[in-house]
């Protein structure tokens, strides 16, 4: 009978919560535009891909007096634009559901962050012709300017070409290395650009043994396996590598750890990882910062921001494919107050390469498998 009493207490406490806890949320006039975003797995706080998308939202808020709903950082610069982000679980129909609920709730522009959104986004977009959808890294076939989907694609190989060139110029005669996360075509874009860039500036690297490349694994966990990255990086440094570039998401930390240990250099990816590490809270992370030579930037934030700008300025977004390369400032490399002196001697050279790519003088191969043909054609 004691148990019955326990249940009664539970019920009482529930009713108490209902009676006491309601709090009024201030509701003001509706926003002009509502922008929704669904993260990839990992979500906000991954210090990389998703956070870069989040930075895009913050940029929108600043520029156009908006706010992000339910954000722990209370991003709030006004009420003209309302923004909301969600995070799915793995697999199933979850991505589709979240996109759909945003559309149902009257969001005008909805982003899906990551290639996993390709199918769900295409399906939902069909049901909501008046809502515009944008997908980062995803390719949906047969779009045109009147479609309500925009694919935001990055030329990671172009950015990688620049950091490859930096590595080729600063390797001091040593080998250079590349660590990929999961072995998928997307990551091979990074590798291809990187190798081509290095070969372009440094003929000595054309000897096959001079460039080391390895992938961590064949499943998504390869993007969060820092110990594996550490082992691979240590091995490469021992074999004589002086600079290693990674495209392995959160696994990159293992590379930076190895770089610190071997007093060699590393190149980060997606965000300005040198800056992030230099301003980190814990000392161990900060200590690694000075071994991060630079980072290949994939400006998801710019892509997110530019798409929203189109909506806010023109009232509509053009469908189709938006490529973000060096020209569109969608990729690049990081120069910050910590590494600018170190990079100073070669900056002009890298800048001229950048111009050549933008002008179409250099066409960067988008996979390591194409580098050989590219080199035979373009390098003497």
């Amino acid at each position, binding site marked *: 009978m004691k*148990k019955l009493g326990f*249940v009664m207490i*539970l*019920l009482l*406490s*529930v009713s108490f*919560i*209902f009676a006491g*806890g*309601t*709090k009024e*949320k201030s509701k003001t006039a509706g926003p002009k535009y509502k922008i929704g975003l669904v993260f990839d797995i990992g*979500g906000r706080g991954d210090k990389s891909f998703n956070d870069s998308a989040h930075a895009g939202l913050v940029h929108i808020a600043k520029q156009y007096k908006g706010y992000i*709903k*339910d*954000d*722990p950082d209370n991003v709030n610069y006004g009420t003209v634009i309302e923004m*909301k982000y*969600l*995070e799915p*679980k*793995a*697999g*199933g*129909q*979850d991505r*589709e*559901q*979240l996109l*759909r*609920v945003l559309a149902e*709730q009257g969001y005008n522009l909805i982003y899906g962050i990551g*290639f*996993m959104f*390709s*199918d769900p986004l295409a*399906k*939902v977009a069909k*049901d909501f012709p008046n809502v515009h959808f944008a997908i980062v*890294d*995803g*390719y*949906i*076939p047969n779009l045109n300017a009147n479609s309500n989907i925009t694919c935001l694609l990055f030329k990671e190989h172009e950015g990688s070409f620049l950091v490859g060139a930096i590595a080729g110029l600063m390797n001091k005669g040593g080998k250079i290395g590349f660590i990929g996360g*999961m*072995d*998928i*075509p*997307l990551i091979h874009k990074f590798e291809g650009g990187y190798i081509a860039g290095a070969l372009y500036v440094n003929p000595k690297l054309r000897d096959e043994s001079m460039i080391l490349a390895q992938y961590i*694994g*064949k*499943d*998504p966990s390869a993007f969060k396996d820092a110990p594996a990255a550490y082992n691979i990086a240590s091995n490469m440094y021992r074999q004589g590598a002086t600079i290693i570039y990674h495209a392995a998401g959160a696994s990159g930390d293992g590379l930076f750890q190895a770089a610190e240990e071997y007093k060699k250099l590393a190149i980060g990816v997606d965000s300005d990882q040198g800056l992030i590490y230099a301003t980190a809270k814990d000392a161990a992370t900060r200590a690694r910062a000075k071994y991060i030579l630079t980072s290949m930037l994939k400006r998801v934030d710019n892509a997110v921001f530019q798409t929203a700008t189109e909506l806010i300025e023109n009232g509509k977004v053009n469908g189709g494919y938006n490529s973000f390369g060096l020209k569109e400032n969608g990729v690049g490399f990081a120069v910050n107050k910590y590494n600018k002196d170190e990079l100073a001697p070669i900056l002009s050279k890298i800048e001229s390469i950048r111009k050549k790519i933008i002008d179409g003088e250099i066409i960067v191969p988008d996979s390591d498998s194409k580098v050989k043909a590219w080199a035979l054609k373009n390098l003497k």
Partner: protein
Amino acid sequence: MAGIKLRLDRYKLLEIFAPVAGFLASIVVLLIIVIVVGESPGEALTAIYKFSLSSSAKVATILSVSIPLFFAGIAVAFAFQSGVFNIGAEGQYYFGGLIGAMAGIYLHLPAFIHIPVVILFSMLGGALWALIPAILKVTKNVHEVITTIMFNSIALALVNYLVNGPLSGLGQGKSLEPQTAKIQSTALFGKLNGFFRLLGWNIPDYVYLDYSLIVAVITGFIVWFVLFRMRYGFEIRAIGTSLDVSRYAGMKVKQLQLAAFIISGALSGLIGLQEIFAIRGYYTYGIASGLGFDGIAIALIGKNSPLGVVFAALLFAFLKQAGYGLQFYTSVPNSVIYVITGLMILFIVVINEVVAAYIRTLRKKEAV
């Protein structure tokens, strides 16, 4: 289902009380967390309601989401009934799904044959993936927890390799997501939404109430019938209760274990049906992961009975939707729902045990 007699005596009522109490207790914890986060509990409950039960579309979505959860639960429950701790459902549906998808991609058959064929191939794949751990258990006494965990990893690596390599269906300029070639339209699962609308249930087209629902209903019924109405099911439950007694009674314990393990694998093969044949139309390494482990929790809460698993799967689907509701309408982080799900399992299992002990003493008293 004429065979099911709903005898609501007090023991049955007590048994029903356990999950209900566990559910309520975890909701209370949820509301406490909501208050700590600084939201109002009323709004949180409204958010959950809006996302789960507010419209027929939402209710139908819960039903839809529960389908793979049901398969996961019933697969694990079947093994549990026989005392086999199959935590390899994960690997089994990865592999089963792959085999099923291969049949869908490469066989050319008319739809009315193709669909049953891909279902059977999925089961076959799952069964195959359970075969080696099952044989190792029965012949060499290697514990299935260890082998099935290892086989989960092997399946994951194998599937990723195949999808990115030999079976990759990626052409130039296509989606960046690694995937196989498209499954032929004859093997794709159609939707039952129109049928439900005829019955007066007004659900929109986008909800995935597809053929896998029919498969689930049939599977549930067959599993129930085999376990509780057939001699082999009786023997499977007997070995799950006591190997010693079963051996004493002349049952062929090893064969039964082997069979139960493999059947559990075959059932696991069905977990991926909905996602592969109804949602995606191709196979990829990103097929819902973690369902094998959800299956353990669902079997536990459902007390390994097919009907219990139905309820537990619906409960899990509800929780999943509730989590999104909270995420959408409040600032409660999504991860809170993981905590709540974990707590709920804990509460329900503990309360189940307490109630079971209480019922035992009551019965003892009654029996003298």
